[in-house]
């Protein structure tokens, strides 16, 4: 056995002797970089970089309890602490301590498999969609709708819109919900990363887009209705807000109901966007007609 350091580190070559299966393909693993560099301290390289000093494990001739950091035996907070030792300074993990996943004790090794990953990138335990669906079965049902974002087709991933490591407070709605939704440039809803034509700024913004966000009218995952609509008819979507009632709207005197010239018996007026074509925001008409 190679001589251990005073801290009990024995070096990765000792681990190899008993765990050749792990070592054999480890060169594909992103963590192999620490081994390849040859410049890291024992505490930051190879097996012991994550699992801790191996002296006791070697002397006991194996056994999980003798591994200082055997991840399958660690509690959620300990797993988190261990991984964040290196990964905690990344911008995308700034909210990991307060994320809904962490609250539910879903931590790193629930989704990532370091030694038997299904994906080379991010070392996910399963393909991303399958990984998320295994807990979020209701979301899977939403992505089975006729009108949906193309996640099952492999065109998109859940992480295009969500950050499973947590996100700052949303800048739309009241900033408390939804959680775990990532933000696009300018801290906007992620929808606007792709749907750039809806982004503006416009001379006349539709307040619904900016104040409460796209979900005011659309379901983001999937819907039985076209265009991911919350309702199957356009007029129902519009009139549920545009009813002139109470203290709502920009001037807190109700969101304007439509004009008397609109006879709702006439199908012509039941599809609002036929005339109000620029419903997400317009540059030339405050009623979004042009």
């Amino acid at each position, binding site marked *: 056995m190679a001589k251990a350091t005073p801290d009990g580190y024995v070096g990765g070559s000792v681990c190899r002797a008993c765990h050749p*299966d792990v070592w054999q393909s480890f*060169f594909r693993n992103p963590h192999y970089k620490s081994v390849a*560099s040859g410049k890291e301290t024992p505490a930051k390289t190879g097996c012991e970089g994550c699992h801790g000093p191996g002296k006791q494990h070697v002397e006991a001739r194996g056994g999980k309890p003798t591994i200082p950091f055997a991840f399958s035996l660690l*509690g*959620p907070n300990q797993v988190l602490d261990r991984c964040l*030792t290196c990964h905690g300074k990344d*911008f995308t993990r*700034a909210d990991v301590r307060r994320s809904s996943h*962490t*609250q539910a004790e879903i931590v790193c090794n629930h989704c990532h498999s370091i030694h038997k990953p*299904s994906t*080379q990138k991010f070392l996910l335990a*399963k*393909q991303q969609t*399958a990984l998320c669906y*295994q*807990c979020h079965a209701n979301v*899977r*049902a939403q992505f089975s*709708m*006729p009108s949906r974002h*193309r996640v*099952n087709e492999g*065109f998109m991933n859940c992480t295009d819109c969500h950050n499973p490591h947590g996100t700052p407070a949303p*800048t739309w709605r*009241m*900033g408390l*919900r939804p959680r775990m939704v990532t933000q696009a440039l*300018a801290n906007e809803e992620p929808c606007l990363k*792709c749907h750039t034509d809806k982004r503006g*700024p416009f*001379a*006349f913004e539709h307040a*619904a887009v900016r*104040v*409460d966000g796209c979900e005011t009218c659309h379901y983001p995952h999937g819907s039985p*209705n*076209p265009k991911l*609509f919350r309702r199957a*008819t356009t007029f*129902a979507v519009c009139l549920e807000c545009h009813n002139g*009632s*109470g*203290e709502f709207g*920009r*001037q807190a005197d109700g969101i304007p*109901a439509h*004009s008397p*010239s609109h006879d*709702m*018996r006439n*199908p*012509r007026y039941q599809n609002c*966007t*036929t*005339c109000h*074509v620029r419903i997400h925001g317009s540059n*030339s008409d*405050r009623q979004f*007609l042009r």
Partner: protein
Amino acid sequence: MRNALLIAAIAIGQLTAQPTVAPSTEPVGPARGENVGGYNISDSFELGYRFRSLGGNLGKYRSDVNFGNGIRLLGSRLQLNSREGRGRLFDELSLTTQGLGNDPYQSAILRLEKNRIYRYDLSWRLAEYYNPALAVSAGQHLLDTRRRFQDHDFTLFPQSGFKLFAGYTRNSQTGPGLSTAQAFDSRGDEFPLFMDVRRQRNEYRLGGEATLAGFTLNFLRGWDNFKDDTPIGPQTLSAGNNTADLTTLSSFRRTEPYHGNSPYWRLFLTRNTRKFSMNARYSNVSGRRNFLVDELAIGADRLGAARNRQVFVFGSGSRPVVAASLNLSLHPTSKLTLTNHTGFHHSRMSGDASFQEINNDRAGAQLFNFQYLGIRSIQSITDATYSAAKWFGVYGGYHYSTRRIQSLEGQRFDGFTDSVFFEQRNRVHSGLGGLRLRPVKALTIQLDTEIGRASRPFFPVSERNYHAVNGRIQYRARNLSLSAQTRTFYNNNSVSLFAHSSRSRQYSYDASWTPGSRFSIDAGYSKLHLDTSTGIAYFAASQFIEGAKSLYISNLHSAHLGSRVAFAKRADLYVGYSIVRDTGDGRQFPSPIPAVDNAAIQVFSFAQTFPMSYQAPMARLSVVLTSKLRWNLGYQHYAYREDFSQLFYQNYRAHTGYVSLLWSF
């Protein structure tokens, strides 16, 4: 044993998703790769032919599914890794593609990395978006466009304490579309118009990261440019949608270039220790767009008078946005975590448009419209998590948010200015609590609830008095996984005359069993219930109708079943079935818009319920030809049926499938 585990893991992974039939997911064998020089290379690609036969509404099929006929590179993967981690030019090259050739959803993902020196990531995606002016929404807006996305990210010295970043993103949308325009006033007829969509966004990024004395500072500077040069017309026009209307349009042309940029800054500072962690971020975006509208319409108005109208509009919109947040996490013991997130966001949208109309060679006065919408919000989110034991943990939190909205809407006409300014605030207090039980290692039970109270929400359908109750139970053993989940969300938003209430209840059950490498099965069922009742008001025959209700009831049942059988390591058969069915409120053929005469109120008094079904059974056979070659044959049937329309003109049945060869080593 290792191979068996690998196959089982892949099988479970594939079964828990709802796959499209292609590309094939069955592996030729464990990816072992071949050593060439100092590199290990593994590769696979699947070349095949897709076929499609369709009966029914092609437009709806293209909107929902869109797979067509032809030869495709259904999927490919190339992986090169240096065995010692000290390659000359790179240590890792990873390239994954899907659907290249002519699939509606194509992608290529590349990573190129040299340890300690650089890392380059490329993501390229293409989606064919087809929206056939779906009849359910009575739409007349068609889009047959292609969206292309590409992201390039380059990092210099990725493993060091000092990193540099550069990035580029491009997003474009091109293709034909149909829109509508109204002429010559707000009561005039509408006309379908052709447009040639040309939109493009380019974003450039530069940044860096430095770690010093335990603090890490990350900064990013970006420039985001957007342009929309979609022309509309010129074209020969029809008599319009409403034949009873006298409005005609003999010529129409509209040009409306819309260009602008949004330069931004982002700063991020973080510090992590054993007992606490903190991070702070700040971003500043200054968005501006300039536009010009030049429109010419010639024809007759709704009274039959000849009209030659030109409209000129020019102006700009701007939206500076500042966002900042501070996260503090304390973990005084290994069991307790306290976190606080304080967020600040302020966006100020302002725009103006100078409008001038020339009617039959007579110029009207110039009208100057302007508006401002300022949204400032502050959140304080405090949570505590306590893991009392391995089998028991609790968490809870108090969340507070306050928002100020300032609105200014006005116009200036002939020296006279009219504007309305209003400011309003609303607040939300919410609390949540939950617990997690793990009586045995394989079994997890989680319950949580949240209750919130908002003052003065902005919309009638916004969250006001809401509560949510969620529960999940999961059993995961080596070969068996069972789970059940429930989510309920109730919201009530009422004022003196109008009320909005929504009730959402979701129940999901899922099971998967993989007794060995030769067989696996996965099944699940979800019920998504939603009913909303909202007060509405509208005009019918010039009569203002108040106190009506818009009722919407949806009961969506979604189920899936998938099973994979391996025959003596020579062939794999996968069969799957998924169905979504909306049973509405239980009626088989409700009439969403009943025939009415002067009782227009009935339009909304009826529950809006739209029963439909959408199902997609599939089967795939994959046969091992050699140790590196597989032959695959797949079939997937799509059936969409609406039960709410008497005409059924959006229904379709599609037979799709593919045959392919998959080669890999």
